[in-house]
């Protein structure tokens, strides 16, 4: 097994069952997270980005199930099949929060309002390490200081509502980083924040990544964030990874029509009023009424009869694409 890979997901299928209907939210997703690198997962709302993350963390809601595929965590003590562990079993709880940690999108709702921020960080520390209360508190203060929170000795005893939005997200990161995880999953960590605060958080995540050699899996819908942060990119559409490769490969030479259309549809800063933005026609399909074959087919300019069967994953030089017409797309670029 490749030593650089810390977590690999193979053909993951997670389905939701509601009202006797089945939503194939994640339908055959494969990717690897490399040690000390950032993998960005991009896609529009409803494409299955967050479900992939919660599948890895085994935090899926009750009505959903991992149907197929494997999630392998390559720990220092051998490989662990996360998908086969019991959701709330001892082993999963040991990994969750210490080896694989997660930052959630909305820092306002993911901190418990009735406990102090310090208490919530200490809880994680005490759970995973043998620490006395005092040691844990000192460690929590140190973490908050590292995150650039002013007056950490005082702030550690404050409640989440006394923090601003950016500070709350820092506290969340402090909590996630408290046990020096090998993998950090960040689900749209800055979507709710202002750009100047977003820049601060990214700076911080970059620093932590370098210091602790943590692999980051970042979920986002912003191509700008991808260009800024990612080493590798996976583009998702309707429950599939349609393109996966290094950031250079995907952003410079998009091989999938969806990636290309997505890049053409966003205004780029500094290009002025004359730039051409080309909207993607149509809308994302209803997950209960999916198109046959390639999911992007009905909105795609390259559509042919061949697209009525789901394309295979084709890999050229580590650049994976799921499209029958990728050669034409590359030629048109």
């Amino acid at each position, binding site marked *: 097994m490749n030593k650089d890979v810390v977590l690999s997901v193979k053909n993951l299928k997670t389905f939701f069952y509601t009202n006797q209907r089945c939503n194939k939210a994640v339908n055959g997703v494969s990717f690897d997270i490399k040690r000390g690198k950032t993998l960005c997962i991009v896609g529009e709302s409803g494409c299955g980005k967050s479900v992939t993350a919660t599948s890895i963390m085994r935090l899926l809601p009750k009505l959903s199930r991992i149907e197929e595929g494997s999630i392998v965590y390559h720990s220092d003590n051998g490989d662990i099949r996360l998908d086969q562990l019991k959701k709330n079993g001892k082993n999963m709880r040991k990994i969750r929060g210490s080896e694989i940690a997660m930052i959630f999108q909305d820092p306002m709702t993911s901190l418990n309002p009735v406990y102090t921020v310090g208490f919530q960080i200490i809880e994680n520390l005490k759970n995973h390490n043998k620490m006395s209360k005092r040691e844990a508190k000192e460690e929590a203060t140190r973490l908050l200081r590292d995150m650039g929170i002013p007056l950490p000795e005082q702030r550690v005893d404050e409640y989440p509502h006394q923090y601003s939005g950016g500070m709350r997200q820092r506290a969340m990161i402090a909590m996630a980083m408290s046990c020096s995880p090998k993998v950090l999953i960040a689900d749209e960590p800055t979507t709710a924040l202002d*750009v100047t605060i977003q820049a601060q958080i990214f700076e911080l995540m970059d620093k932590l990544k370098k210091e602790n050699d943590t692999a980051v899996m970042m979920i986002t819908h912003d191509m*700008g964030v991808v260009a800024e942060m990612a080493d590798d990119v996976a583009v998702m559409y309707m429950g599939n990874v349609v393109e996966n490769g290094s950031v250079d490969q995907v952003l410079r030479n998009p091989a999938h029509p969806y990636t290309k259309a997505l890049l053409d549809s966003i*205004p780029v*800063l500094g290009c002025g009023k004359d*730039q051409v933005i080309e*909207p993607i026609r149509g*809308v994302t399909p209803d997950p209960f009424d999916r198109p046959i074959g390639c999911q992007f087919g009905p909105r795609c300019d390259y559509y042919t009869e061949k697209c009525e069967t789901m394309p295979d994953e084709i890999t050229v030089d580590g650049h994976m694409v799921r499209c029958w017409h990728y050669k034409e797309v590359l030629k048109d670029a």
Partner: protein
Amino acid sequence: MHKEKEVLLSLRDVKTYFPIKAGVIKRVVGHVKAVDGITINIYRGETIGLVGESGCGKTTLGKSILQLVESSAGEMFYDFDGEMKDLKKLSKSELNDARKKLQIVFQDPHSSLNPSFSIFGSLQEPLKKFGVKSKAEREKIIGDLLEAVNLRREYMYRYPHEFSGGQRQRIGIARALCVNPELIVCDEAVSALDVSIQAQVLKLMQKIKEERNLTYIFITHDLSVVEYISDRIAVMYLGRIVELAYAEDLYAHTKHPYTRALLSAIPVADLDKKSKRIILEGDVPSPVNPPSGCPFHPRCPEAIERCKTDVPTLVEYETNGRTHYASCHLLEKE
């Protein structure tokens, strides 16, 4: 189009303060200075972008212009067929007429349409109020509007839950267009939409603007979007305008340190355009007691002694022969 530069709306030192009340007798203990002295001329037919971080007062300014929020001080002159009248001093019936000319598109398309009304039900309200008596006529107008925003005529008898986010936002635009307005305030009109849908709505808004010779006040926090759609851009910080310039000049010849930091903080989806980020420290100060002097000085990387005491005013400069306003002491020295 706006070469003759006909002023449509002229704001003079507009202030909107919200009182903070405390105690049993609800004594006023302070004010949130949401909008703190805005002076700006808006010309007919232009799109002016208002950008800034959350809490800088951009939405409050938009609502103050529409008289949805009562402003505490200042004057707002609006061009009523050649006659400039202060919107704040209009009588009730005059204000009703003014509402025909000023419309708004809200941020959240999910909560700004009444779920128990069909689209026809929602959109006919303004028409009824402004005297379109016959139902057949209302149906015709609404049908035409829906077609103008690329929706089908038949959709008017559907309910909001049957539409996607992008479609609902287009209905929101159609509603604003109902009464043939002159000025539309777009309050984060595309922020809640997915990127692929965002482009559709932006293009549509531009098309409609050209067809109907509208003026937009485009409020957003997304600088890439605002650059694409606006003629001029006003950057706000803590209730004040810190820089106001033509879109190209704002990006190419940034004057204010805050704008520079804001622009550098935005991730750009282009690998060749990576620039060095200027990281601002700390958060936006509270608008309840803003810092003395220049409101930006505690976070400003270039602040000098004078910034702590003197409040800078918006001074007119020139870039490429066009006006360019900025409020910073550092610029005055040159």
